[in-house]
């Protein structure tokens, strides 16, 4: 039998060599046993170390961050933005809105008092708070205070004075209508802002405050415009007084000259 095998190998040398080569190349690798294998033990030890490290380093670090975050959160909720005080402030704003509505109503109480037709019409125009009524102011004014005298009824100096005084008075009355209307709009805007504040958050309230500040600047400007017109009116009044003196001086000089002429003729 062995001789036959050796003989067969000699006869198929090339095939035998190929078979050996195949066997060598395809021999299965040795596998690692799950028991008593040092590699598995090391793997287990490595994983345990990783786990411990994760617990200590990562877990500890996250716990530290959590405690800091909790401290900040507590501070913000108790000191910076306490919900109870925020609700209390909102409730106060709601109460103030009621007070402010009363103020707005007070500013619109009708106060008309004139009894004669001409003065009633002028008074109604002046208290209308409606800028569209300004176009009718001059006619109502003339009905009560008359117009500038004609050229045959007064000197040019007096006519200028009368016209200027009428103009200043009428402009002031028209400005008063404008200011009343603007004040109404400001009251409306203030009401809207207050209503918004009632529903605002601590982070959005400053935005509304900025808007309210802008409206306050606008309101100050309107107050200044009204004050300016008042000053203009008083300036014209002062100029009127001065003009009266000038006219009186001129009339006295004319009278003196007339008397002199009269005496000379006699």
């Amino acid at each position: 039998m062995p001789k036959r095998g050796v003989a067969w190998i000699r006869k198929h040398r090339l095939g035998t060599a190929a078979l050996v080569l195949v066997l060598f190349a395809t021999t299965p690798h040795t596998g690692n046993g799950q028991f008593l294998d040092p590699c598995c033990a090391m793997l287990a030890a490595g994983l345990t170390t990783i786990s411990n490290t994760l617990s200590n380093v990562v877990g500890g670090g996250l716990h530290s961050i959590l405690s800091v975050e909790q401290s900040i959160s507590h501070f913000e909720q108790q000191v910076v933005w306490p919900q109870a005080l925020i609700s209390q402030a909102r409730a106060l704003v709601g109460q103030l809105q009621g007070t402010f509505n009363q103020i707005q109503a007070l500013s619109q109480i009708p106060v008309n008092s004139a009894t004669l037709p001409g003065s009633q019409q002028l008074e109604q125009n002046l208290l209308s708070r409606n800028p569209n009524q300004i176009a009718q102011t001059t006619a109502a004014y003339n009905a009560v205070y008359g117009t500038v005298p004609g050229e045959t009824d007064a000197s040019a100096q007096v006519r200028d004075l009368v016209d200027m005084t009428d103009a200043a008075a009428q402009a002031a009355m028209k400005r008063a209508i404008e200011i009343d209307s603007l004040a109404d709009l400001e009251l409306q805007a203030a009401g809207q802002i207050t209503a918004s504040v009632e529903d605002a958050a601590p982070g959005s309230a400053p935005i509304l405050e900025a808007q309210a500040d802008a409206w306050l600047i606008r309101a100050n400007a309107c107050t200044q415009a009204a004050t300016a017109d008042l000053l203009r009116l008083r300036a014209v009044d002062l100029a009127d007084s001065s003009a009266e003196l000038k006219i009186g001086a001129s009339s006295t000089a004319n009278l003196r000259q007339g008397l002199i002429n009269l005496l000379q003729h006699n």
Partner: protein
Amino acid sequence: MHFAVYVGYVVLLSLCSSLVMNFRSRRHIVAAALAAVLVVTLVSPPAAPAQGSLITAVQAVLNVINGVIQAALQAISSVRAAVGTFYQSVAWPVELIAQARVEVLQMMNRYRHLMAGILNINLKSATLPAPQALENLMRDHQINNFRGLRQAFTNAYRTIPPAADASPEDRAMADMDDALALDNLETLKATDSATDLELQAADSLENAAAQAAPGSAPFLTAAATASSIRSQALTQKMLAAELRQEAAKMAHGNELRKRGATFTLQLRGVLINLLQHN
């Protein structure tokens, strides 16, 4: 898995052996051998890692945890702690918040009653019954007695003269003057009442400020600013009333001037005629 690999290996080996035995040409044998090597190589399991590389991998993971991750967590923790410290010591220090509240309370106690006392000083000065009644009504801050105010005004300043006693121009101007004076007195009563409400609102806002937190104060400041707008609006309404009043006063004087000019011209004409007749 391993069992299946071994079974496959045995089957493949048997197949190759039988092929080698049956092949006659060298080329067939070589092709079969290469095919077998190729197939086994493709289906063979991947090489197992060495023990040394496992240790290296574990150490690398540990290095990442102890290095990058630990450093990042420490950095985050220290930054958050710094933010917390900043909040508590710079942005919203509790001591200063409490101090501000105390200061608000101190100012309330110091000024509120003082100012109220000044505002409530009695200014009435009339001595006769009719002026006294008018003065009382003018200054009572009430808006439900305008009828009484008008009656008191008429009692103090009398009524418009009847048509038989005065010219239409004089009657119209007197009526207009009285109307604007009464309008403004009524407006002032309403404004006095509104001022009282504004002062109450200011007191409420100040009371709330004494208990406010940084997060609730913006509500109060916004409401206070809106209240300032209303205050300005009321001031403007009073200015408008003053404009009307001053304008009417000037218009009155101007109307007298117009009539004076006409009278002067008429008088001059009369004098000239008189002199010419003489």
